[in-house]
């Protein structure tokens, strides 16, 4: 992975927040997405084409505007307007939009920009305009290497999202998942990583051994996952920059269900021994292992609260799978789910106010959220099989995987990645080259 060299040249925020008329209401679903016009970014004369992976990318300004539009559309909060209705030329609009033209096509916000490409440098400048108030809201310029053009598009998307919603964006992020091929009884699984929008897929393992449940470190360059390397299911650590892998701890048995602590310094996981699974942590620097739960039941799927003070986890100590919360030292265990059915895969929201989970009831699987004390349960989506929600870094979107029914020949089976908004609206398939499962969302690559 090439390190992104990035510098922000200038940052002008002209209008103060109180002056802005354009605001996106994010407390509701996608009932009324904001109409936004993303003008193709104008290319400075003398700019070169970008060569990437043996392909030549012409007109990168248009490509960048398309990436931004897809991000906005998928967020459910924006309605990018069709480019054929745009009257003003990109270069002129970037200097000074004729707001009445943009108002005519019902745009409330307008994005314009300029791109300069030399052999080893890409400079992208953009402006966000409030069409209603006829003024500039944000202007920024990014400078990087040409092959990073998609990341620039995502960073622009994040800046605009943040300016219009007041929340941090989640577009300059990646998703690690398990890519699946083969029949249901002989499945091959590889670790795969892609940009949040499905572009730039890379496979990180060869598929020789079963791999499951990859999870990002909040610091991004590390991933923890379960591998059946040499037929010994153990938790591993993988550095995605260097490709170096190592087993986590020295356990005489299966370790599984790993996640990072919020500071990235510990891995929390289950260790199964003699038919009993308990929760352990290992501090990466010192390799010190600590036992957190000690119960004859299955204790698994641990996840820290963002302040690191609490852990939610899955246990069948009451007889069937339920969700529990305890202090991070293992004390004060409290059951929080009392609804009908089974509850699993609790994941604490990065905002701290919610826990996402999988619920199984009467042969259906649900993805839902509840407060950390178990109150306010809301089921977002129901299906034949779905599980393993993972939060976007801003705590607004959940990504999970869904499997379909099959006959005894395995016909009809598929495993796909989906995302849904916290509001329960905007459910979307995330297209992947192969089947996919166990997605985990990274934090923002640049802050």
């Amino acid at each position, binding site marked *: 992975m090439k390190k992104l060299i990035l510098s922000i040249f200038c940052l002008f925020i002209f209008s103060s927040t109180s002056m802005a008329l354009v605001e996106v209401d994010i407390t509701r679903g996608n009932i009324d997405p904001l109409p936004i016009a993303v003008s193709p970014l104008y290319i400075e004369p003398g700019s070169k084409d970008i060569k990437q992976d043996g392909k030549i990318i012409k007109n990168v300004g248009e490509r960048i505007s398309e990436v931004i539009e897809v991000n906005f559309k998928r967020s459910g909060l924006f309605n990018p307007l069709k480019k054929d209705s745009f009257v003003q030329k990109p270069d002129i609009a970037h200097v000074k939009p004729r707001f009445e033209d943009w108002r005519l096509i019902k745009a409330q916000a307008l994005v314009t920009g300029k791109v300069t490409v030399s052999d080893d440098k890409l400079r992208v400048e953009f402006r966000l305009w409030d069409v209603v108030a006829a003024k500039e809201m944000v202007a920024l310029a990014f400078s990087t290497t040409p092959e990073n053009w998609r990341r620039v598009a995502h960073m622009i998307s994040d800046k605009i999202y943040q300016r219009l919603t007041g929340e941090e964006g989640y577009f300059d992020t990646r998703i690690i998942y398990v890519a699946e091929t083969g*029949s*249901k*009884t002989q*499945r091959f699984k590889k670790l795969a990583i892609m940009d949040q929008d499905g572009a730039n897929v890379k496979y990180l393992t060869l598929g020789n051994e*079963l791999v*499951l*449940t990859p999870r990002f470190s909040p610091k991004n360059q590390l991933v923890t996952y*379960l591998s059946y390397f040499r*037929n010994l*299911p153990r938790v591993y650590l993988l550095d995605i920059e260097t490709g170096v892998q190592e087993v986590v701890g020295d356990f005489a048995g*299966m370790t*599984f*269900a790993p996640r990072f602590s919020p500071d990235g310094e510990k891995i929390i996981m*289950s260790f*199964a021994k*003699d*038919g*009993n*699974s308990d929760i352990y942590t290992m501090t990466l620097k010192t390799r010190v292992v600590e036992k957190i739960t000690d119960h004859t039941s*299955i204790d*698994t*799927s641990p996840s820290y609260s963002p302040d690191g003070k609490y852990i939610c986890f*899955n246990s*069948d100590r009451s007889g*069937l*799978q339920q969700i529990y919360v305890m202090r991070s030292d293992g004390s004060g265990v409290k059951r929080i789910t009392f609804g009908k059915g089974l509850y*699993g*895969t609790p994941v604490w929201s990065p905002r701290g106010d919610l826990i996402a989970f*999988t619920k*199984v009831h009467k*042969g259906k699987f649900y993805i839902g959220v509840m407060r950390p004390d178990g109150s306010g349960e809301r089921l977002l989506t129901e299906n*034949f*099989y779905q*599980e*393993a929600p993972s939060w976007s870094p801003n705590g607004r979107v959940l990504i999970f995987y869904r*499997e379909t*029914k*099959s*006959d*005894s*020949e*395995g016909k*009809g*089976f598929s495993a796909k990645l989906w995302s849904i908004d916290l509001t329960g609206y905007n459910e979307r398939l995330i297209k992947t080259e192969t089947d996919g499962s*166990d997605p985990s969302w990274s934090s923002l690559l640049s802050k």
Partner: protein
Amino acid sequence: MVFGIDLKKIFIVVLASVALTACATQKKGTGQLQGDVYTGTDTVEYLATGVKDRVFFATNKSTLTTASRDTLRKQAAFMRKKKDLKFAIEGHADERGTREYNLALGERRANAVKDYLMTYGISGSRLSVISYGKERPVNSGSNPLAWSQNRRSVTVKAN
């Protein structure tokens, strides 16, 4: 009073016939279920003549049924004869649970088998345990029969 007793008899007869029909319908098809534990032999392989390689479990359970214990006693007898052989016990779950819980459940099932074999004199050093959770189904179907065949522990020769 007499009338009441007659009614009771009729009721019992009706119940019995309902139960019979239920049995008859369950025995149709390729396999058999007792509760939701698979009792058929469609997917079963053999370690030696008459020694089944696997036992089946109820949903979310790791308890051994009478039939399972019978199978495992035969496995133990076979293991006592073949002193040079080591065995791996593979625990599996069906696709109707979350992945991580199923990994733990498969481990619990395989250990239930290991513990039982050890009570019949097989040294724990000859028995390794591995859980595959829901990752290695034998039947691809998404139906109760397929799930019952997949909730299993399989004993395989490891050397």
